[in-house]
């Protein structure tokens, strides 16, 4: 039994310690907002916050997470009004949407570090893949979210 603290709730999962967090979240806990895209930390679709830091949950073994605080897209905000989510709506960013939970979680953590990012900062930090190619709007939305946060 491993105890995972996800979105403020404690979940007892009876899984092997080397199980990637992604599958504990999706299959054992049943939160499906966190997505599977590659399984080897390449695409970022599975990004969650672990103690406030954006991590790719497909590559985080749960054996290391006792006591850690995990936040998934479902709990980024209570009402979908996190500045990043608002910016995403305003720019109509998502297409198929599969990558977007990860994009939003990555950007939310990133903007905490870089409240006023340059395009270069964004390029270096947001390496999530979007197969639909929403990058044009995604970049605009990141800047918009940064402004919303200041306001």
């Amino acid at each position: 039994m491993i105890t995972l603290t996800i979105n403020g709730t404690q979940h007892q999962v009876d899984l092997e310690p080397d199980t990637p967090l992604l599958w504990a979240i999706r299959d054992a806990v049943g939160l499906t907002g966190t997505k599977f895209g590659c399984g080897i930390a390449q695409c970022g679709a599975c990004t969650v916050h672990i103690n406030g830091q954006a991590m790719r949950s497909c590559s985080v073994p749960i054996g290391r997470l006792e006591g850690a605080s995990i936040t998934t897209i479902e709990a980024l905000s209570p009402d979908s009004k996190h500045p990043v989510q608002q910016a995403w709506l305003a720019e109509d960013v998502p297409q198929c949407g599969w990558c977007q939970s990860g994009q939003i979680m990555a950007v939310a953590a990133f903007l905490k570090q870089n409240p006023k990012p340059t395009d270069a900062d964004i390029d270096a930090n947001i390496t999530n893949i979007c197969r639909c190619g929403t990058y044009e709007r995604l970049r605009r939305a990141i800047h918009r979210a940064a402004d919303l946060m200041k306001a």
Partner: protein
Amino acid sequence: MDGNQSQVLSRRKFLVTGVTAAGGFVIGISALPHFANAATVGAQPWGEEGGHNPREIDAWIVIDPDDSVLIRYQRAEMGQGSMTAVPMMLNEELQADWSKVKVEFASANRNVREHKIYGDMYSNGSRSIKESQKLVQQVGASARTRLIQAAATKWSVPAGECSAANSVITHGPSGRTMRYGEVAADAAQIKLDKEPDIKTPDKWTFAGKPMPRLDVVHKINGAAKFGMDAQVPGMVFAAILQCPVPGGKLKSVDESVVAGMPGNPKVVKLDNAVAVAAEGTWWRARQALAKLQPEWDTGAPGSTSTEQFFREYRAALDSGKIVTARKQGDVDKALGGGGKTFEAVYETPYLSHSPMEPLNATVKIDGERIDVWVGTQDALDETEKVAEHFKIEAENIYLHNAYCGGGFGRRDGADEVIQAISVAKAVQKPVKLIWSREEDTRHDFFRPMAVVRFKGATGADGMPTALQARTVTGSVVLNAIGKLPPNGLDFVSVQGLATNGYGIPNMLIESIVKDTHLPVWWWRAPGQNQNVFAIEGFIDEMAYANNLDPYEVRRKLLQGKADWLATLDAAVKNSDWGKPLPKGKGRGIAICTDTDSLCAQVAEVTVTPKGEVKVDRVTAAIDTRYQVNPLTIAEQVEGGIIFGLSAALYGKIDVKDGAPVQGNFDTYRMVRLAQAPKIDVHMLASGGDKWGGAGEPSTPPIAGAVANAIFAATGKRIRKLPIMDNDLSFTV
């Protein structure tokens, strides 16, 4: 939001959670002005089983006494936005209060039972709108007319004196009004002796303006339900390994090695694959699967390679069976006519679709009845494919279509659904089958490889006088449809070559189809996605060889074609075409027609002396003839360019010992933000009797535009994709 708790699927719940989620969102986002009065879709897009509702006016429309309207959408939503645009067209005629509209997927099962009442259901070939337009406008107009008729009858006035707007019917002379909700039940009973005419786009008052996509609200908080998100009580998770060599068979596998592994794994042998179903997590199934050492019967293809295929394709240029696709003038004469002549061979590799959501399907079998939860581009066709495969009645298949995590042409093969059903039958439990990324890449139905040989001649003025193109490529038509049309031409193989708009007096376009053991399929802009790169490169070659501006050459070749010229000019005029650039920087143009739209692009690139390429900027123009939702058109153009750019820069599936090599995103590279160019899109609507698509047309030109820009920057001509395999280094 419903996404916060694990959902247990009960058919009633789909709708309930859908509604609450949607309702919640409307409140949640009303702060954003442009979302006020928006219609809604469910976080779970699939509707009630069988798709019936006592209060429906017809199969498409349900109006409740409180005026809330349910519109059923018959195709797929994979980000292309037609789940928003198609209902917009319907409501253009229905004239319902958009803020009271909810949209859900039409039921494929009902479509089967009620003789295709929704028509076909597929979203591919950019056809969701262009092929739905007349149908759904008619549906909306018919309902509106019946609502008015019902009100007129109540008032006992001539229907002609009544009008409808915003869910309210008004009697002109008396000014009396009645709400849709009040007359919906009566309207449902009315049969019209004559269907009303539908509006021409110039009369539209509602459609045609930018409209935020309805599904987006569920895609910012994890609520949107995709196929992989379905949860059925008691389901087990399945992972699968298919024969590394496509077409090969499973010989044997020692199941004993998974004994005692977590999740009580069960090995299921399929004809061409081995699957493992495990309890608890998909990961357990995947780990047990990885422990198996199956033996495969790969047959002769087991020794083939990419190099060999390209050798054979090149040889086939002179030995294959030629089918003529287009012929004008006398090419041979013109080529021998003493002008400058050109010859070049262009090569493009196999590609995988690689939608972001790997293929998956969830299945529950209950006696005769099979419930399937899957994101598919064609709910009807997959239902029929499954019925045919298992020799069962299509009526017994209940396919609940989900949001697609990308499709690009791959999500209509039903192969993953058939596998999931086979596993569920074997383990006697509901099953969620998920392909690993490696399986998804290596067992794609690929974009075919192609070798295209051009011959050309230019006249005294340097303008092309002859163009011959002969392609050798795999046959998408044979693979996907099973037979060629009577004329024997695989029309996909020459898309982009035969469809070129250039007024070259002598032209001959020829097709030779040659398949390998790799299955090939529709891949965003089939045929176009490789041929436009080739022909636009060759046109460029002839222009530069005669010291002519590639833009001017194209303008001259397109003389008399106002729509082509307008699209070309829109792209070029909005770029900095003609402004001088330093060595290592350059601009390139490409243009094509696809799905009756036109798309032109100017790419601006930087190439470092080490040969590293960065696409800085793309200026695109698209003429879709008509526009239902300009916002989604722009989004599709932006996305299609990035999709084509990943392929142009990095995309290839190599074959070694008969097996596709690239597996995950570390070997099958994708453009990320850092490589994404600045894109601006200019939209035209030239009208006419055809409607153009928006999803495909922007993908074909980008490779050509970038390759031509690289030539302008370095003097190096790229004739083989991907670009990363070309040495572009230069000395300053």
